[in-house]
């Protein structure tokens, strides 16, 4: 049982083995979104605002914030974006950049305990990112590849993940503060990508005892009906023990898969969150609408 505790100034979110699946909203990311990139580069954050609020409303547990726009001052934009998003929501954030200076700029302005996204198993990256994670008391996403690249053998990737955990321990970073990304490959290109991912997720959970995350839409790359494939993957990955994903909470199929997996794994007592989310609204003027839901005493929150 491993709990990764993230926070904003006023709210805690826990990624854990016996917790509801943590949905990390991926929308605030200009990569591949030309219009958003152009806006952010000129200091227009209106789309960022809209994306933040929409993802919160859709049920995200955390938000990922990325400001990777070529030929701009990424550290400054990332810091500014983080401050803006933190003023809009109390959900904890993942600070997402491949540039160490940008991670540091984000960490410096962040209120609470964020998730740093990410570090790989490459020695140079470990030595640059882990000290920051320690300095700012953050948690970190660890991607299971290293100098040799991404192995197709899940057991090799397991060894990379273990190396990162051990390395982090040298810096005084607890295993609970490392969330491993097993790197899910497109199933359309690699027929064993699903089985390899589930095998690795199980090992990471039972042997290395770490929480896990991944980019949930990678698996369906190059296929039609990607939402259907992503949903199947998320439910199965959750069943194998994955505890979070960086994904688009605006897609109802994927969210239903995650919420359904929570119910089936016993992480949604009495189906309360499922009911709250999917109960049809009471018809206008009915007794239910008129008052029965206006309770003077609330249920203990689920």
């Amino acid at each position: 049982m491993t709990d990764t505790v993230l926070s904003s100034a006023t709210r805690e979110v826990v990624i854990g083995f016996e917790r509801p699946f943590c949905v990390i909203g991926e929308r605030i990311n200009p990569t591949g979104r030309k219009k958003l990139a152009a806006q952010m580069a000129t200091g227009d954050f209106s789309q960022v605002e809209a994306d933040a609020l929409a993802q919160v409303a859709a049920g995200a547990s955390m938000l990922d914030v990325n400001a990777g726009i070529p030929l701009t001052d990424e550290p400054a934009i990332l810091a500014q974006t983080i401050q803006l998003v933190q003023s809009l929501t109390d959900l904890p954030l993942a600070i997402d950049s491949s540039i160490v200076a940008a991670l540091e700029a984000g960490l410096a302005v962040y209120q609470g305990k964020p998730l740093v996204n990410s570090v790989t198993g490459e020695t140079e990256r470990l030595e640059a990112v882990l000290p920051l994670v320690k300095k700012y008391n953050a948690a970190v996403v660890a991607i299971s590849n290293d100098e040799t690249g991404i192995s197709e053998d899940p057991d090799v990737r397991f060894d990379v993940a273990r190396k990162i955990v051990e390395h982090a321990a040298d810096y005084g970073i607890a295993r609970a503060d490392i969330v491993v990304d097993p790197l899910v490959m497109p199933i359309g290109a690699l027929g064993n990508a699903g089985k390899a991912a589930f095998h690795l997720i199980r090992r990471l959970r039972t042997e290395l005892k770490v929480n896990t995350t991944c980019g949930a839409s990678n698996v369906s790359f190059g296929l039609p009906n990607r939402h259907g494939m992503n949903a199947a993957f998320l439910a199965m990955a959750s069943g194998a023990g994955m505890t979070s994903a960086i994904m688009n909470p605006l897609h109802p199929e994927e969210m239903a898969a995650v919420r359904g997996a929570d119910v089936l794994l016993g992480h949604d007592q009495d189906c309360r969150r499922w009911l709250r989310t999917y109960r049809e609204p009471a018809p206008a003027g009915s007794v239910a609408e008129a008052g029965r839901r206006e309770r003077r005493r609330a249920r203990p929150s689920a």
Partner: protein
Amino acid sequence: MAETDDLDLRSLDDDELVKQMQDDLYDGLRDEVEEGVRILLERGWTPYRVLTEALVAGMTIVGVDFRDGILFVPEVLLAANAMKGGMAILRPLLAETGAPPMGKMVIGTVKGDIHDIGKNLVSMMMEGAGFEVIDLGINCAVEKYLAALEEHKPDILGMSALLTTTMPYMKVVIDTLKQKNLRDDYIVLVGGAPLNETFAEAIGADAYCRDAAVAVETAKEWLARRHNQRTAAA
């Protein structure tokens, strides 16, 4: 949530307390319902009045909202569990004071069938409505029904089946009752997902009950009808 524990049930007058208990029942708050029952008893309410005005009235609301698709199975089970908590306090007192039960029912899921959620809902809703319920559980052979009918002399026999392969067993039970000339001693109600009115009629049951709330309404209706017939005959 912060306001959860703020409310002091003792500070409410009887009317407000009863309303609050119905809300708590609706929300499946067992401890709070039990506390409410104790307070009303301390204030001199008879156990029967607590049962009918607080608990049964509350479960009626739950039943209606379940029927209307506003509440779902997990919530009804939570409410029923809260009701059970209140009933556990009231039952011994009701027995002492000899309050009139609405009627008596023997219920069970038929032989070969192990589904019991729907049957349990009916049991709890019937108890909630003031019936005495003898629940025979699942996988009941005809002999088990007969023995229970003999022992408890209920007004109503309820049978449940969730499978098309087990529902014909209801006819076996009813035919056996007919052979023994016992059929008309009981109101026979049947229910379960694959059933319908036509099936109920074809096997010689008195009525098909679509869900737990309908079961309670149907049971009351048939009891009243039978009572009237007997009064007329006398």
